[in-house]
Every structure is written in C-alpha cells, then in structure tokens.
C-alpha cells in the first residue's frame, strides 16, 4: 500500500482534490503508467493509428447502440417497423442508426488494417504473443457481435443470412442438428431467435468484448509496443531507465491520435451523411424488405466483412475434398521423409493422416467447409508460433516477402469479392485456389519464413524528425 501523502494546506484546490483521490484510488498512478509515462517508440508510422481508431469505433457503437435500444423492439412482428420508426419519428434517429450501421463496417475496416499492421511488422512475436492472441479473440467475438446484430433489423437479408449461417452448424456430425436448434430456439429462424440474438448482441457479447479489449491493452502496456523496425526499444535505456527511442504516449501520441481521429471522422461522416448505404454494401438493399420466411431471396450474401471467409466456405466442394486429401497425404509424406522425428512420432504422423483422410471421405464436404471457415480465423491465433523468421519486421526480411504479402492481400480481397457474387464455375475455381493459398501461407510459414537473405537489423529505430 502506498504511503498516505500529506499536502500543504496552501495548495490550490485542484491539487488538494487530486491528492485526496490519489490517497484513495491510484488515479495519477494509472494515468502515468498508461499515458504520461508510457513510453512508445517514436518511429510509429500511419499504420499505428488503427488501434486507437478501433477503440473510438467501439465507443461510437456502444453509445449509438444505447440510444437505438431505447427505441428498438426485439419482436418479430414489430422489429422492422421499429427500425423505420427510428429512421422517421425519433429525433435524429436516422443519424444514430446510420452511425451504428456505418460503424459496424468501419469497425471491420480498421480492425483488418490493424491486424495487417501486426502481420507485416511482426507485432505478434515474442514477447507479444498474448497481445496478439487477445486481439484474435477480439476479432472472433466481433464477428459474432456483428452477425447477431445484423439479424435485428429483421429484413430479408437479416433473416436469410442468419438462416444460412445457423444451418451451417447442423452440418457438424452427431450434435449439429441439435446445436442449430439450440442457437435458433426454434426449427426456423423466428421470434425466439431474434430475442436471444438481441440479448447476446446488447449484453453478453459486448461484455466479453470489453473484457478482451482491457486484457489486450493491459498486455500491450506490460510489454510495450512494437514498431515498424521491429527493434525492442527497451534494450537501449538512458540512466533513468527510460528507453532512448521512447517518447511519452501523452502528449505525443495523444495529439497524433487526435489528428488521426479527425481524418477518420471526415471519412466516416462523409459515408454517414452522403452514402449511408454505401452502394448496397453497408446497408443491403434487400434488407429494406421485411423478413418473410416464405420467400427466399434469389441471392443470399453475407455483409462484405464476412465474405472472404464465406468464399472459403463455398470453396469446399466434394471435388475440392480430393485436393485437400492430396494435401494431407503430401504433408504426411514430407513429415515422414524430411522431418527429424523418431519412429514413434513418424508412426503417429502417418496414423493421424490416415484417420483424417478417412474422416474427410466419410463426412460431407459441407462440414469441412464450416471447418475451413472457422479454421481461417482460428489459424490466426497460432501465428506467433508459425513464424520462424529471425527478424520481426518486413523491412529486414528478404525482398520477395513483400511480394508474398501483397499476393496475400490481393488474394484476400478476391476472396471477399467472390463472396459477394452469386456462385459461378470460374469463381468457384478461383476461390478454391485462393483458399489453398490462404491456408498455405500460414501452414507453410514455419518453412518459408526461414528462407532467403535477411537484412541486418539496426540496434536503434530509424527515425527522421518531421
């Protein structure tokens, strides 16, 4: 426990009040630890804005969400009408609703960019593995939050999107149908589903999300931020123990973030006020038709931020299963021939490959599609242990790595584009190649991340004063 601090009776009122609080709650201590004496590398570039922006969007979503819940009715007969009521009769309701719907898409934009930043600068490497793992958990929970929130306007796309995705769970052997029933609370998506999704969307999932965000930031402030050079600034300290390349987060990065936030708000407001539907991608046109369980829309597509994963789901056809089986067998063969393992381990590799192939042949491709979709997110959690590169940042990796990461991004965008489109034979082939590339990128990372010629990493960060 800290010692009780007396202050001169002549001190200004503000100081006295702060002293009173500090003797009872670590206010100054927290502020210093996380802001004024939290040393961040001085060489951050614009990629480093997206963490703060994600926090800002989270706040926007919570605040607008609170106001929406005041007027929204989670009831299948009145939900659609209550959203239109918000759009028409609630003062500024249209603004609150558009901020929330645009915020959902903005959240994914900033989170995808934030994750990509981590990917290229190796921010997930030791000692920041848990920062990354918490971050991946945030991404997963955010997907659940967005999926459940999308049902609430109770339009055709809300309804049929939920119907399709919940039905996926029924592809799981043995427990699937019962699991889908448990999620829906009914045999089709209906009032019961709407009520439980509402409850999850406004209470359960946001609580988990906030907890994870706190864990993410605490873990980050424990180890300190990485930077574009991937150099540990704590390795070079001055005589007071302050990193030489570190600057206090406040005021340097707080003013930096205010500038970044104002630029972000310009883009955000331009969408909210001038193009809230964003060409049918942020608010889908079909969702202005009230949900009708008897009329299936011709083309059901999830919202854009899910489409890369949805593409991977659709790519797993029974034909594709043979390609995947070939991959498993090839992997096992390499494991036996190349890897330095003892005979018992080699036997285990062959055994598990045989079991996996048997399962792949026995269970319907639809289930493996679900596995691929889930696996595409889950594989991100393992990134810190897949990367064997001797350096963190892409700046000091072999030059061809830049091309590889570029192809990774383009591949992800193409998968996203194909997920919006109705299925087509060409699209199916492209998405299958894309899926193999996506998983190959991660699963072969232990091998390719060691290859090539690495550039020397400087001992201090590179920084040019503005």
């Amino acid at each position, binding site marked *: 426990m800290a010692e009780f601090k007396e202050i001169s009776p002549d001190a200004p009122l503000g100081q006295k009040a702060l002293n009173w609080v500090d003797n009872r709650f670590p206010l100054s201590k927290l502020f210093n630890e996380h802001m004024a004496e939290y040393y961040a590398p001085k060489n951050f570039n614009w990629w480093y804005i997206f963490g703060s922006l994600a926090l800002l969007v989270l706040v926007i979503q919570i605040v607008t969400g609170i106001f929406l819940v005041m007027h929204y009715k989670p009831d299948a007969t009145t939900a659609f009408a209550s959203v239109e009521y918000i759009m*028409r*009769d609630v003062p500024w309701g249209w603004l609150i609703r558009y901020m929330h719907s645009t915020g959902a898409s903005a959240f994914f934009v900033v989170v995808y960019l934030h994750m990509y930043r981590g990917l290229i600068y190796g921010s997930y490497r030791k000692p920041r593995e848990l920062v990354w793992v918490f971050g991946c958990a945030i991404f997963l929970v955010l997907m659940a939050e967005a999926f459940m929130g999308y049902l609430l306007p109770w339009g055709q796309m809300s309804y049929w999107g939920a119907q399709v995705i919940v039905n996926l769970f029924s592809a799981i052997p043995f427990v699937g149908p019962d699991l889908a029933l448990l999620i829906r609370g009914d045999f089709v998506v209906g009032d019961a589903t709407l009520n439980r999704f509402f409850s999850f969307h406004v209470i359960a999932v946001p609580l988990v999300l906030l907890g994870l965000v706190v864990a993410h930031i605490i873990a980050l402030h424990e180890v300190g931020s990485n930077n574009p050079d991937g150099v540990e600034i704590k390795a070079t300290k001055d005589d007071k123990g302050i990193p030489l390349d570190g600057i206090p987060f406040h005021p340097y990065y707080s003013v930096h973030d205010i500038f970044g936030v104002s630029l972000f*708000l310009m883009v955000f407001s331009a969408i909210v006020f001038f193009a809230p539907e964003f060409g049918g991608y942020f608010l889908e046109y079909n969702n202005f038709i009230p949900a009708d369980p008897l009329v299936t829309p011709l083309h059901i597509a999830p919202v854009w931020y899910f489409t890369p994963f949805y593409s991977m789901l659709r790519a797993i056809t029974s034909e594709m299963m043979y390609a995947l089986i070939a991959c498993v067998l090839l992997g096992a063969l390499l494991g036996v021939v190349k890897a330095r393992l003892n005979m018992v381990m080699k036997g285990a590799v062959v055994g598990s490959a045989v079991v996996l192939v048997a399962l792949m042949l026995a269970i319907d491709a639809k289930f493996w599609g679900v596995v691929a979709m889930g696996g595409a997110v889950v594989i991100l959690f393992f990134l810190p242990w897949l990367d064997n590169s001797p350096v963190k940042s892409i700046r000091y990796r072999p030059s061809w790595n830049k091309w590889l990461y570029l192809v990774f991004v383009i591949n992800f965008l*193409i998968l996203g584009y194909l997920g919006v489109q109705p299925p087509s034979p*060409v699209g199916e082939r492209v998405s299958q190649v894309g899926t193999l590339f996506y998983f190959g990128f991660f699963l072969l990372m232990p091998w390719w991340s060691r290859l090539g010629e690495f550039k020397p990493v400087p001992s201090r960060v590179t920084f040019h004063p*503005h």
Partner: protein
Amino acid sequence: MKKILMGFALALGLSGSVLAAGGGFPLDKAPNRTNDMAALQNGAKLFVNYCLSCHSAAFMRYNRLRDIGLNDKQIAENLTFATDKIGDTMKSAIDPRQAKAWFGANPPDLTVIARSRSSHAGTGADYIYTLLRTYYRDESKPTGWNNMVFPNIGMPNPLWQLQGERKPVHEKVESHGHEVELLKGWEQVKPGTLSAAEYDQNVGDLVAYLQWMSEPAQNSRVRIGVWVLLFLSVFTLVAWRLNASYWKDVK
C-alpha cells in the same frame, strides 16, 4: 506493380459487367426531383389517388407531408381519405385476404420500396420509373396486363386511365447467330387522358415522391453533412498544427 493492380481491376470489372448483362430489362434513369416541392406534392397526390387504395405506406405518417411544403389543413382536406387523423400512418383499406385472391399476392408496403428495389442495375427509383412506363396489354394474363421489367406482374396497370393501352413493337435482330427479339418502340392502342410526354412527367413526380418517402430525412442529411465536414476540416487543420508543434521537439 501498377500494371498488376490494373489487370486485377480489369478482370474484376469485366466479370462484373458480364454478370450484370445477364440481368433483366435495361432501366431508364429516373429524374431526380426529391428537392422539387411542386413535383413532390403532385407525386403525393398521385400516390394517394392511385396507389394507396391497395398499397400501404405503413411507416409513413400523413403529417410528415409538411416536409414537402403542405400544411396540416391541406393534408387533412386533400390527402387523408383512409383516416381522419393526420398523425396516422398511410394504411390502405384493402383486405389482405381479398387482395391475395385478386392478385395472387399481397400488395407490398410502399414506404421504403424505392430503397428495397435498388440493385446494381440502377436505383429503386429507376426501377419503378421504368416499371410504370412499360406496361402493355396481354390477354393471356389473368389481369389482362403484363410488364417488361416485371414479367407476369400481379398488379394490372394502376395508371391505365392516364396512360391508355399500349403494345410493344418488336423487331427481330440477328445477333451472334441467334435471332433475338428486341423492343423497337410502343404502339398506342387506346389513348389515355395524358400524352406520352405528360405521362412520363407525372410518373417522374410519383417516383420522386416514393423516393422521398423512402427516407424523408435524405435531403436534410446531405445539408447537415456539408456543415459537419466543414467543421471537421477546420478541426483537422487545428489538430494537424497542434500535432506538428508538439512533434517538433522529438529529435
């Protein structure tokens, strides 16, 4: 690098247009009149007279029509046939069961129809504007009417008194080795009370009204947005300079 990106953009663009070409009847561009009070008032009158007997606009209140320059007295005297309270929403008097028996389906609610009928082929306004101008007589249909945009439509031409009766004139064209029928023009079979040009003008007004009704806040939204962006640009300027003045100490 730029070339590669361009290549991808081209590939995506091409595949997009191929898919779009598979769609239906090409849509005409609806005139944009959501800021034109006289057009909106005429559209509201047409809507109440010709649409509201079968279609509701169940999320739209009569008194919201103040936004298009009408006062409560004008609304109450000229537009509220189905109710005597101008705070009510626009509900049609049709019995859903009878509607289903007559037309094969319930007439959809029209409040947000101009938003829900949008697609990558055109806006919802374009769709309705084209739909209401491509009706033709077809005795093989139960209602005696058919439509270019919406083949086998359940709704007979609601504006037939204004437009009269027409039939399409097709022309056979050789294309890629196949004979295809193309729409060449229209032949007026029975005249309506309006000329073709007047009819288009009135349908334009009606569509403008539907477009406005689908989001009554749309024009104030844009107006406010301009001020918000002006404020933010000043704020950004201040934030930029503030940031620069702090960062000049960082060496």
